[in-house]
């Protein structure tokens, strides 16, 4: 039950997207998300949607998984697009009491839905095709210039790696503790809100205790391996850019230039 929860799930594979350098993937995802919001007319938007769909296709992961990742945000999408329906100028389409729907509102509604959905899909392509370790490694490398501002880049990346590593462990532990307390007759299904919150105490306390225990053990194990922060630390798996990444950057830049041209030359829909 509790194990079904997935966070930034990674599907191992050997597709073109999988083989790309994680740094390139992160930067491109970031750029794409910006351009989704820059695109303000139909050709530009179609170009971006085309990029999303081709990235999804190239990742070799089934569409069903992408739909699953959309399921979580469907309410947000619906809510924001319905709200946007009532803003905007243009001809009145429907008038109902104080609510008016104008043509601009309909365009707003569609654009915002497409934007949020593409945003989620782009980030899903990234997390589905990049292992958490690669992801944090790449983030560490990308954020390295922030060191001049005394940002502890390595420490942040290490904390992220550890947090990601322990999510499944803690879920499993929660499952075990829940079973053990249920075996002693703990009742978690019935009662009101307060009673249910109280029923969580026998689970949360052992969970906290074991998290601290694990933290001590991990700290000890890291010290035993002479861990002393990021200074002068080398990587077992260093990230490499290949011609594949060159192509990805070239194609993506072309798409972005296309979007920019559309935005500059064609009239905006807003």
């Amino acid at each position, binding site marked *: 039950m509790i194990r079904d929860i997935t966070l930034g799930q990674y599907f191992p594979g050997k597709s073109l997207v999988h083989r790309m350098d994680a740094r390139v993937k992160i930067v491109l995802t970031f750029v794409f998300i910006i351009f989704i919001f820059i695109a303000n007319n139909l050709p530009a938007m179609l170009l971006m949607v085309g990029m999303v769909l081709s990235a999804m296709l190239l990742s070799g992961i089934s569409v069903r998984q992408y739909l699953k990742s959309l399921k979580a945000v469907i309410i947000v999408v619906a809510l924001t697009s319905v709200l946007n329906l009532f803003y905007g100028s243009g001809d009145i389409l429907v008038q109902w009491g104080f609510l008016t729907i104008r043509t601009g509102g309909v365009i707003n509604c569609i654009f915002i839905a497409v934007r949020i959905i593409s945003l989620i899909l782009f980030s899903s392509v990234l997390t589905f095709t990049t292992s958490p370790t690669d992801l944090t490694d790449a983030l560490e490398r990308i954020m390295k210039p922030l060191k001049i501002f005394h940002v502890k880049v390595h420490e942040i990346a290490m904390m992220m790696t550890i947090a990601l590593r322990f999510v499944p462990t803690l879920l499993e532990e929660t499952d075990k503790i829940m*079973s*053990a307390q*249920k075996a*002693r*007759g*703990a009742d978690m299904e019935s009662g009101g809100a307060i009673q249910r919150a109280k029923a969580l*105490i026998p*689970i949360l306390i*052992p969970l906290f205790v074991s998290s601290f225990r694990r933290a001590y053990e991990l700290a000890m194990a890291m010290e035993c391996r002479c861990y002393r922060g990021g200074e002068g630390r080398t990587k077992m798996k260093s990230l490499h850019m290949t011609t594949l990444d060159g192509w990805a950057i070239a194609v993506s830049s072309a798409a972005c230039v296309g979007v920019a041209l559309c935005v500059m030359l064609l009239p905006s829909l807003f």
Partner: protein
Amino acid sequence: MSEVILETKELTYRYGVGTPLEQVAVDNVNISIRRGEFLGVIGHTGSGKSTLIQQLNGLMRPTSGQVLLNGNDIWAEPKKIRAVRFQIGLVFQYPEYQLFEETVFRDICFGPRNMGLSEEEIKERALGAAEFVGLKTELLEKSPFELSGGEKRRAAIAGVVAMDPEVLILDEPAAGLDPQGRDQLLDQIRSYHQQRGNTVLLVSHSMEDIARVADRALVMNRGKAAMLDTVQQVFSRRSELENMGLRVPQITKIMSLLRAKGYPVNEGALTVDEALRDLLPLLRERGCVR
């Protein structure tokens, strides 16, 4: 002795039904456990022991098949499954990680309190349970997190014993304890069984432990109940057990090797004491021992 208390009928459990990772953990198991017996459960890691015992007390719902307690299907009324868990107490592996209360005493009371007993009865049962597992009274008012590893283990076991279940299931209760603590704990479990006359199931990887305390043994292999017989009978099938990645107690193996070499010893010896009874006269005969 022969009255059946707990029974499984074509019990099957599958993990991940409908996904490519579907796996049968418990495969068509039909066993009957007798009232008042001490049953050892052995099996290789991943043989389905843990899944089996969690189905026996209703923590896991079988994919198909039934678990019968005193002849009634425990899932006949899913809303009453909690009552089943009070009758079939399950002590998980490393139970000390489930302690949470401010004092040891209050933690032992958690189970009986969930049963809705009167304060007096709760207290009586908790004290009784603490005594059974050999927890000293001065420890009861301490925080469970101040206890030593072995004491924590005892406190956690007491938490289940205090519910006074008809069947007590223990999953590797002695794992990680020192040899002395291990022997002590097993002795206490055995005396609990003898004094209360309740049914006890003990899951263990140690064949020596099973040989020492259990009446009968259930052998699980790849999700199936491979054997269910008296300990003597089970351990006499050495080659079959070894094929399943299990073994017989060391002393049993030594005795059977001696017998194969032509010495007049009894093959069925399960403990060192039993073996000594055979070996001492033999050694005296040869003049090795006076």
